[in-house]
């Protein structure tokens, strides 16, 4: 790593249509540890990638996947949080401030 630089994390969260990474992106969030961008709710109506695999192809590293959880008895039909959440990261070298 060059002198006077540090590494910072960028995080991409994708919500997919089913548990497979090849499925369509239906929700997305960004967090930028470099401070170079300020992502926020409602800042884009177009997904950054069509599928989760497309994010991998663009260099994002997958580090967390939501587990598949059995539906509790009596609660099988309730809908709540988005089920298929995938966390990706990139490490970016930036100048030390």
């Amino acid at each position, binding site marked *: 790593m060059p002198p006077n630089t540090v590494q910072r994390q960028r995080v991409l*969260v994708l919500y997919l249509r089913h548990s497979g990474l090849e499925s369509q992106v239906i929700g997305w*969030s960004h967090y930028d540890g470099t401070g170079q961008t*300020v992502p926020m709710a409602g800042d884009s109506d177009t997904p950054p990638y069509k599928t989760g695999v497309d994010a991998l192809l663009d260099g994002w590293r997958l580090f967390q996947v939501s587990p598949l959880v059995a539906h509790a008895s009596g609660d099988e039909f309730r809908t709540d949080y988005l089920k298929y959440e995938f966390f990706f990261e990139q490490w970016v070298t930036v100048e030390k401030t």
Partner: protein
Amino acid sequence: MSAIKLTTMQMAHFAARGFVRLDVTIPDAINQRFLNDIGTLSPEPTHIRAQYRQLMHSSVIPLVDAGTPLAKAYPKDSAVAQMLQVPEVSGAIESLVGATPVVDHHFLHVALPATASDPNTPRRSQHTHQDSTIDPRQAFDVQLFYFPHAVTAEMGGTRFIPGSHFRVVSEAAIGRYQNILGQKHVVCPAGTVFLFHMGLWHGAGLNQSEQVRTLFKIRLCPTQKQERLWDTQEMTPGPNPRPIFWTDGTRDTTQLETTLMTPEPWFEADTGRLEYLNRIRFWRYITGDDTYDADYWLTRVENEFV
């Protein structure tokens, strides 16, 4: 002025998507009077909490105890009361929560432009959330959103997720969902009114214009079972159940079931089907018909032999 109730198709839209939009409903005179009455903001860049303190002290919007009947909440000659008496508005309220709803709370939401915002506080949109708290009831409250002036895209009008209203979540727990496929942003002429199902996911956008954006919200609760309160005259059943999956590809958009069975772009492959069940159960509730089904979705899972 007699109320203009919602039609069956408007109710089906509300059941499926969680909102009703009443376009250019409120006369300009009422909009202008409301804007004149709501109080003043500091012209200097100030923290939003200080702006609200000043607004609350200078506004004629009354303090209303939670649970106050709507009919007694606002002075009869006030702009808010006049807005609520517009036939399309009073009819929509009556269609959804009956003739004697009570006020849960109201709030004047303002979104400041950069020039009036505290320069030391980062400017952001509001996180996506569901109002109030976890609420798994079948009975439902509505949130009336009154936009007294035109809202442009730059003004960051309310963002909302059609079809999210049956999701049982805990308020800001969904705050990390920044963007959802099919999300909408309110852009409207002055005098537009929306009525949201209480569960609809939403959040305020960032105001990037040079003007203050204003929205008045009233949450209304029913005092009766919400059964057949709308104009049910057009409730003519179409062919139902219809063929599913193997179909001829035609869609009759005038048919109730077509609206109830239309997915949102963000629906997951599996839980999108559960949303169909939610909509059918909601339709059973508001019609009082426990046998209603659309395209066999509930009949299939109720076909039990004990």
